[in-house]
């Protein structure tokens, strides 16, 4: 598997680590109800198909990346800097 880091270019998977679904980008506000924290911390879909997830370029520039990936075909549809995500 390879990812094209927007900063560093096309690199081998060994340079990256996986965190999880992009849910982690959407932290509940302080004092949010327990259900919101439960959903944020624990509840994830297991999609067959398109998913958006967070990867860290730890052996590269240190950028957090938002990767659009197809879990069935393993296609990488896009790689963007997480800091530039406006969704």
């Amino acid at each position, binding site marked *: *598997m*390879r*990812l094209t880091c927007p900063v560093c270019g*096309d690199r*081998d*998977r060994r340079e990256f*680590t996986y*965190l999880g679904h992009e849910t*982690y*980008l959407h*932290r*509940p506000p*302080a*004092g*949010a109800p*327990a259900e919101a*924290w439960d959903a*944020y*911390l624990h509840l994830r879909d297991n999609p067959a198909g398109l998913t958006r997830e*967070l990867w*860290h370029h*730890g052996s590269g520039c*240190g*950028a*957090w990346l938002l990767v659009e990936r197809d879990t069935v*075909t*393993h*296609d*990488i549809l896009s790689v963007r*800097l*997480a*800091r*530039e995500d406006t969704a």
Partner: protein
Amino acid sequence: MRIDDKGLIDRGRPLRFTFDGKPIQAFHGDTVASALLANGIRLMGRSFKYHRPRGPLTADSAEPNALVTVHRGPRAIPNTRATVQEVFDGLTVRSQNAWPSLRYDVMQANDLLAPFLGAGFYYKTFMWPKAAWEKLYEPVIRRAAGLGALPGGADPWQQEKAFAQCDVLVVGGGPAGLMAACTAVEAGADVILADESDRLGGRLLTEDTQIDGHAGYAWAEAMAAELQAKGVRILTRTTVTGAYDGGTYGALERVSHHVADPHPDLPRDCFWRIAARRCVLAAGALERPIAFPMNDRPGVMLASAVRAYLHRWGVAPGQRIAVFTTCDDGHRTATDLSAAGVEVAAVIDPRADAPPGAIRGEVVSTQGRLGLTGITIRSDGGLRQVACDALAVSGGWNPTVHLTCHMGARPTWDATLATFVPTADAVPGMSVAGAAAGVFTTSGALETGRDIAKAALAALGGRRVRIHIPTADETPPRQIAPLAVEAPDTARHRAWLDFQNDVTVKDVRQAAKENFISVEHMKRYTTQGMATDQGKNSNVGALAVLADATGRGIHQTGVTTFRPPFVPVPIGAMGAGGTGAGFAPERRITADQPMRDRGAPMIETGLWYRPGWFPKAGEDWLAACTREAAMVRRSVGVADVSTLGKIDIQGPDAAKLLDFVYTNTFSTLREGRVRYGLMLREDGHVMDDGTTARLGPKHYVMTTTTAAAGQVMTHLEFVTQCLHPEWDVAILSTTEAWAQVSVAGPKARDLVQSVVAEPVTAETFPFMACGTVTILGVPGRLFRISFSGEHAYEVAVPSRYGAALWQDLVARAEDMDGGPYGMEALNVLRIEKGFVTHAEITGRVTAFDIGMDRMISAKKDCIGKDASRRPALLTDREEMVGLRATDGGSLTAGAHLFGLTTPLRPESDQGYVTSACHSPTLGRSIGLGFLRNGRARLGERLRMVDHLRDQRCEVEVTAPVHVDPDGGRARD
């Protein structure tokens, strides 16, 4: 038998090797198999289960039978394919899986037991008595079965791994691969061409095909030279073993298997990881054997292999050779043999339209104990015997679709070709040319090689090129009829499918009868295709039998899953460089050498190496550690703490970041001051702790533990990039830029003042102060912090001065009745003070558990705050306590705590010990641990039980801080 004017071997370079101790004459360019056949030796191995005598079936890497061990002693390589191993002067080859010798193998008794050893025999027999399975049956079966034996001991071979990138990877250097590489490089692409053999040409080397009026091998040689000149990277002796996501391919290069006396630096194998934008698969095809009774005798081989031995190595594998074929291709073998002057005993073709001259019939049995002596043919004229010492067999061809299936795709059944062909777009970026695509003619291979490469280049945006297609003397398209010829398959007359695992037609039918009708179930029940050759020759034949037995078509039956690697890959090659010191990087502190010079054992701490203790004459670790800890409490000690993570944080929003990642508040920290901070994960558990110093209004330096330095840095990057990208703050790991030395003890200020230019007083550097200072003329930093409970400082200088600073401070300390101390003493000092490390904050504990929940500020949000308030994390917890031995015994980390009289059962477990040491200050064994509702149980007596080390003692529960509870020693 060698044929005089044939073969690409170098007859000017004769050489000798040994086979089971016997000298064998060969020529440069021979394989072990070709040289043995040239010397009339057909018997090369014994089969896996029945120990049947076997000779080579193929002339390539798909070989199931001719497995041998090469080299001697610890360098021996078992399960080497004799058809792949090139010979050199002095090579040692031994047969395997036979005792006492290849010709008289006692285990051939298994063959007589064959009626009892059919598919799944081990599920049905050896069932009683139950206990005998583990003690008797399994050990005996395991010893009897198996292929070659490992040499034992550490592998002395060098191995290597390598990485490469290219625009186009061409797999296979036959006519299709050569044309593809030529087309790609002409268009300006960066090309890698990999081929299994030692030279390019593929089947052009093993047929007498003419191209543009030249011998095929000569054309290939010229083409190879041209490609090399144009910059194609040619990897010979290299098998592409797997296709992976994102255009990544694995390849195994056999670097020095063919070299008599390889340079010590030369690896045996090199495992390549190749990232290719496009791949042209031109891997050719594999011929199918025919499953007829007793088809496994040495001398029975594939028709294409017979031609290969003839054309490439100038060897006739027999004196009188018969041909049994279900397609036109076998007749070519007969023609070629005749043309070379070899006697063709008979040509048998079961097809209705068999060419004239052929016997319309089938081979129904064979004779010969250690090698073929004759065959029985059944035709319209009834049964007849024909004497022959070799039989060339062809059941058609299977395109080598393997790599196209490595990412989950299945091949497509082509009824016209009666074979599986690659499914389009099976692997992104890969396209297939030549025989691998089911195009079985040489001209077709040349043409598709060019066209497929052109299409690949168009996808890459390469320039358009015109490439001439050379003319190949045309061979008619192959006609392929039935896959298997079956005759009564009894215990005495078995028709083999998988030669290496001894799977017969009867086994597959038996599996079907027992309802293992899924191809994957049949495979596992019979072990069909599960040997080292992965059933390259046999899988399609086996599923044809299964299809017939279940009344389904082959396309409905389907194929088993193709998985990498295509050929066996030594784990040593995949993990090359990962043994010994290469297992993990070593991080060394700047004072590493001076510490080793003092005899300090350097202990692994993550990737770092830190000094355990500094022994004086006659001291063991405990004596040294106890002396060093007492020294710090009495006078002064010097310890390197450079491995602690140091993160520089700057910017207008630096304080916001710290307030958010720490539970406590840092925006209120004054410049020139340090504060202890606790960091949580978002799920409310403790991530790390450490101190952070404020050096300027917008400038902080964070210290993390050694263990969590990387994790904390990644966490800060997550917070600043993913949660609050709007904050104007920059973070940088400076761990390796600074060397840091702790100076601790009642005399610490005197020692520090002797190296710091600025005054170091209670006013200028009170407890938890920090600042920029000049240390022996070098700009550095001074922090008044303590991890020992003593009056202490940490002195930081740029790394290049680290070793000098440590040595200088140690020398000065020694003049003051002090000296260096190591990790063991550092640990004792912090246990005495009840300071936590990752022995306590294991990832499962909360701030509440370690008694720090009041550090979670009520005035602000922080990572983990909300989750840490979950009720389950605040009630009935195992809380951190101090523990002291009351009976003179010793605490051990990992031991569990029980009531004095309660039974030692998991359900009465009260907690566990996380850290333990002998306290020189208290004169007894103490520790830290977690105890159910522990803070309410101070003073209680408990039993400590360490089942692992068989150690017990009685302990008293105390507060975590064992020494100087009010902290006066550090503050004064």
